[in-house]
């Protein structure tokens, strides 16, 4: 390395520069973008807060309490919340009119800023955990930058305005707890993750696999069994409460009920072709990992989670923000296969290109910019503009380009998947770091 640069930029300085730059980007995005999902979320929180509701529904209750906590502190700075967040229960999802009434008010910018504050905090906490997770690794600043400047998480959190970072924080905390040999902490964190996002149930086998690895290595079954009991009981608590106390969901038409309710409906059911390759690839990963004799429980969890979530995106990307579910485990997996960093970069930018070529206007659309002005709604998307110019030639049409970038994304996923499963436990990180240098 160049000695001048080495002396001039210390890790601490570089870290601060990266953090400030990342914060600046986030602040610049926060007040100006809105999707209806975020408004629906805030309307539910407002309603629950005003009507002393402590059990809104059986899904996403960890996110509900986090958002409600922040709502309590930010409410004094809100303007006319009773009108702008008005919700006619039980129909909780915001309509186009709700959206435009909200964006039509001049206070829309401050509300968006306040709404996204918990996401900014949890995004920061995720970055902090990633920093800790990669402690002692010479490339940890590069990994942190992969999180801080990742287009997927930036879009999902600050443009689309989804709460994925809260859920991911609990997933990463579980991995960190396992790494620190604090199984009870990891178990509670994982329970919170399960109650944050339904997709995290996909990681349940990976978590139990990690407990099994821990028990095998430490020749002690008491703590892993206790951890497993915590996870299983706490996971089902809402179900028990609903049964014993006759609790009912306040909101019956939440978007979450049509997304992935316990992996039964929606994606798997509607896409018959997906379930078989998913099971095949996941089973392959599971069998491979078992015969690999992984010795670290954190590695077992991260490898298992990554091996489970990557096949989930074999047939499609569904909604644009869903891909954050893959990004966090993929980043953590670089602890064991640092040379696969390029695959994560390619995955992220192939995702960006894929959605830019999406001409349907479902995600990368002017609707997101309507807080600035309503006329952005209905303006052509990047994909539509492309189709009117370069994409006129069928071979390079937006639809074809989208498929090209999806294929590249799947290829990058396959590289990460293969490298992760193939990494021998004996491969020391130091060795990998040397290769990187």
């Amino acid at each position, binding site marked *: 390395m160049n000695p001048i640069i080495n002396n001039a930029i210390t890790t601490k300085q570089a870290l601060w520069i990266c953090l400030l730059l990342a914060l*600046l980007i986030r602040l610049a995005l926060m007040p100006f973008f809105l999707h209806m999902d975020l408004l629906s979320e805030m309307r539910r929180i407002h309603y629950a807060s005003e009507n002393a509701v402590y059990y809104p529904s059986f899904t996403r209750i960890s996110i509900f309490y986090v958002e409600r906590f922040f709502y309590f502190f930010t409410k004094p700075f809100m303007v006319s919340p009773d009108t702008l967040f008005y919700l006619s229960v039980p129909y909780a999802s915001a309509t186009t009119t709700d959206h435009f*009434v909200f964006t039509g008010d001049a206070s829309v*910018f401050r509300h968006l800023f306040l709404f996204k504050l918990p996401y900014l905090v949890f995004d920061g906490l995720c970055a902090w955990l990633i920093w800790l997770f990669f402690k002692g690794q010479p490339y940890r600043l590069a990994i942190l930058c992969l999180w801080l400047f990742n287009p997927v998480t930036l879009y999902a959190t600050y443009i689309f305005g989804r709460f994925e970072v809260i859920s991911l924080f609990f997933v990463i905390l579980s991995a960190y707890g396992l790494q620190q040999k604090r199984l009870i902490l990891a178990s509670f964190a994982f329970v919170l993750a399960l109650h944050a996002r339904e997709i995290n149930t996909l990681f349940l086998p990976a978590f139990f696999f990690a407990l099994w690895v821990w028990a095998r290595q430490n020749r002690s079954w008491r703590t892993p069994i206790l951890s497993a009991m915590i996870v299983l009981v706490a996971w089902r608590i809402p179900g028990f409460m609903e049964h014993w106390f006759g609790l009912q969901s306040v909101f019956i038409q939440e978007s979450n009920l049509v997304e992935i309710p316990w992996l039964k409906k929606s994606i798997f059911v509607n896409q018959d072709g997906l379930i078989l390759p998913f099971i095949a690839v996941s089973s392959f990963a599971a069998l491979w990992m078992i015969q690999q004799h992984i010795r670290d429980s954190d590695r077992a969890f991260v490898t298992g989670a990554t091996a489970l979530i990557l096949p989930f995106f074999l047939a499609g990307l569904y909604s644009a923000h869903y891909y954050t579910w893959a990004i966090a485990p993929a980043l953590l997996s670089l602890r064991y296969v640092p040379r696969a960093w390029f695959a994560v970069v390619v995955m992220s930018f192939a995702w960006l290109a894929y959605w830019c070529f999406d001409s349907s206007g479902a995600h990368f659309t002017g609707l997101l910019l309507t807080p600035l*002005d*309503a*006329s952005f709604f209905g303006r052509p998307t990047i994909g539509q503009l492309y189709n009117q110019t370069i994409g006129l030639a069928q071979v390079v049409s937006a639809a074809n380009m989208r498929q090209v970038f999806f294929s590249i994304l799947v290829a990058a996923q396959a590289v990460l998947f293969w490298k992760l499963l193939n990494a021998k436990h004996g491969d020391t990180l130091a060795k990998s770091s040397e290769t990187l240098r």
Partner: protein
Amino acid sequence: MKSLGHRFCLALFCLCFFGAHGLTRASVDVINGEALGNNHFQLKQNDPQLHFSVPENVNYAQQGLLVELEALDAALAKKEYSVELFWAAKTDTLGVSRGFSKQHRVEFTSQSLRFYLPHPQIASQITKLRVDINNCACRFKVLPLQWQSETAELATLVPPAWRNRIRSFSGFDIAPEDWGGQGFVQVGPGQFKHGNWDPRILNKDEINLPFKELAGVYFEFSYDVPHPVHHFELFWQTDRHGISAKRSVHFATDRGGEAWPDQQKLFIPFAPLHSQQRLKRLRFDLMGCGECTLVLHRTRLVGKQEAAKYQDFIPPRIQFVNTEGLPKGLLAHRVISKMAADKGFFIFYALVILLVLGLLVYLLLGLFKGRRQL
């Protein structure tokens, strides 16, 4: 020397004479044609124009202007003429298209070449009139212009385009019978019982007026919704486009803890739409309510002349969604105005951004300074 009484009698006689006959004489000029004398004119094929200097209407009554031309070529007498009518009032700025503006123009066909222009607000202000008879190349005798009150016979001579012009200028009510419901069960003229969760009403007869000539639409209605906040949408169908969320207005009313008033009054202005198209139909969507009844007391397409009276009924937080025909620079202006409306937040926001940016610049400068020292 004539006495004062004599002069008064003479003036009274003149006034009575002209008032009774309503007859005024106008000077006529021709462009792209030839004056043949005795108010006879030969028009050319391309863009012939008859220019009338209209004398003041001395009666100030509810009158209109009768324009009559007589075809001198018997073979052409029954032909349907394509007529363009331009006018200018005292206050109009002349200079466009030889003194007439396209904004003050109506186009129609006429068989008799007798047409009547009623309505005091427009007709009585006209000082200049231009009549173009297109693709004719024939001879006409121009009869003197006459100020006359509207009669049943004269009403048949009003060009439809002129009628529309009057409607857009002074506004008109849409009759309760003209509204139909979707998601509503109609129980009487302008009365609807709720049918499902997406109730809406829309007018049956086409309006067929340019958006830019109307000031907006006014609703006066009762709707016994129990919710404290009520959301509405307005959509429109034009000569070019059907109903779409891309062309819509959204707003909410808030009763603020009080009971809903017996009649809600809303005015939705059209100016922010900047639409160059012709309005055909309106659709007004109301918030769903299981057992509610809607009673339309009055709906009116508000003309520009009366627009000021309705400004107080514009609902707050009204949002206009229209992506076509926005003037250049308007978007930036609207964005800046919206931001400026929440100064408190943007001052705080700017301070935070400046703080982060300042720290970043400080670190980067320190970095370069350190490098130089090395």
